[in-house]
């Protein structure tokens, strides 16, 4: 009887891993304005997973390979005349997801699979899923520790990065690949919507709290882990969908911080004005 035999304990470990991973990767996603792309990836890896399940190969492998295909398609179509990145992303999103649905609808057990895929079930993660998530987390964090500085430079100042002789195309691809791997690792266990919430939410909240770059990563990771743990706790306590309650916590924290900073900004401006009047 090991500690990991309990479903709740496994869910807690997965929540911590995904919360930290999502928070750190999210800083890059928010800085590069990739939330919609992330959303599209979560939907578009679906047919890959279905095909992998039909062929009996590894689900992560199928989702990952298909995701790469989608990345290539978005980049290719987004360059067309009169088209743009956001339109191409929308098309990849709906097209990829529809392909998955058509493939699934030809099978039996249609509705159950699909709902699990959309909202996920973190209480159903096995030890194998935990190992996969942990491996991805370690790999992604190592990569970010190695080239994080270059990636951020390319995010904020692409021209400057190119002038410094950095391989910007390679860096872009590396970033998209990191996002893709994160999505592929988290979606089977957590569902498409929750994956987006955990990647974008903590980073966007951290961005509200600080203007400096270095604290963004620990703040985002802490918010991610905190929300994930709170969500698992609430869902086991009151029997609501786990993924959704985690996403709800992320949203509540973001909303509270948004209102808080808005009020703080207004108070500061009022104080500054009064000081100016007195002077």
């Amino acid at each position, binding site marked *: 009887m090991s500690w990991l035999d309990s479903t709740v304990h496994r869910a807690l470990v997965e929540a911590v891993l995904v919360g930290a991973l999502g928070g750190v990767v999210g800083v890059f996603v*928010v800085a590069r*304005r*990739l*939330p*919609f792309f992330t*959303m599209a990836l979560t939907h578009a890896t679906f047919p890959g997973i279905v095909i992998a399940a039909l062929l009996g190969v590894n689900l992560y492998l199928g989702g990952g390979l298909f995701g790469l295909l989608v990345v290539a398609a978005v980049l290719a*179509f987004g360059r*067309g*005349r*009169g*088209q*743009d990145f*956001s*339109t191409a*992303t*929308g*098309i990849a*999103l*709906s*097209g990829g*997801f*529809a*392909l998955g*649905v*058509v493939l699934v*609808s*030809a099978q039996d057990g*249609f*509705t*159950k699979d*699909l*709902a*699990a895929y*959309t*909202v996920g079930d973190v209480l159903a993660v096995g030890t194998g899923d935990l190992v996969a998530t942990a491996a991805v987390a370690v790999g992604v964090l190592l990569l970010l520790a190695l080239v994080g500085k270059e990636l951020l430079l390319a995010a904020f100042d692409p021209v400057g990065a190119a002038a410094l002789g950095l391989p910007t195309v390679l860096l872009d691809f590396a970033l998209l690949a990191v996002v893709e791997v994160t999505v592929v690792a988290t979606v089977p266990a957590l569902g498409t*919507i*929750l994956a*987006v*919430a955990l990647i*974008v*939410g903590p980073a*966007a909240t951290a*961005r*509200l709290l600080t203007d400096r770059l270095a604290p963004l990563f620990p703040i985002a990771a802490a918010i991610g882990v905190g929300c994930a743990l709170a969500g698992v706790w609430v869902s086991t306590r009151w*029997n*609501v*969908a786990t*993924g*959704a*309650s985690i*996403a*709800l916590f*992320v*949203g*509540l924290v*973001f*909303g509270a911080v*948004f209102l808080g*900073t*808005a009020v703080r900004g207004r108070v500061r401006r009022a104080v500054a004005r009064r000081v100016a009047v007195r002077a």
Partner: protein
Amino acid sequence: MMFFEPFQLPFMARALVELVLLGALAGTVGVLVLLRRLAFVSDTLTHTVFPGVVIGHLMAGDGGIFWGALAAGVVTAVLLTLLTHRRRVSEDAALAMLLTTLFAVGVVVVSRQTGFTSDLTAFLFGRVLTVTETQLAQTAVVTVVVVALLAVLRRPLLLRAFDPEGARAAGVRVGLLDLVLNVAVALVVVAAVKAVGTILVIALLVVPAAAARGLSDRLVVIVPLACLVGASAGWLGLVVSYEASVGYGVRLASGATVVLVLVAMYGLAHVAGFVRRKVGLSRARSAIVESAA
């Protein structure tokens, strides 16, 4: 005739009317979605009407769905317009937060009910084959209202799309105009979501306009072309899904088949546009060579 025969069944005929109406409606609104790059906004709206659908259903049964969705759609449109006016949060981060949070509210409420998975699936993919005449009437009314609204406001809307600074200088109230367009997209989503599901709505809003844009550079051509692409993809998708299930015993979800037909049309339009430009270029080049010689 393979292309007309399925529609002698009343439920197939109703599905066809619904999809053609929605194709035309979404094609028109989709051109503005394309010009303003609102693909993510549309995606967000498709997900955020979900809690409205769920709560409306809980409070008033089937009749409450439309009004619940409408309320949620309008609330989202207002929140969206407000959130994106603050500079600290980038627009797409704000959208992602709205999308996931409101969708999560819906899922939490649904997960307390029984029949959880089948409700969620119906919402994601709709049940186009069970469209009722009341829903058809609702869709028709929404189509007329939205198209009339866009026709009246077309000048300021286009000015805002191409030159926001110029529009502001010309005295156009940009914030209000953005709200109107967001509400129009929300109306399309509300009209369509019960019948065809979220994924098909986003496809209908994004793909036909993008395909039409690939074929032409002129707005007068793009709008009717987008309507045509949307409507004919609905028709073709229904035919394919019907033939596959009746003729070959392969069940294909009808909504998703329509999306795949749309994407295929987009691919063809992309190739056609590419060829057309290549031909135009080489013709221009040979004309220059001739005039030089």
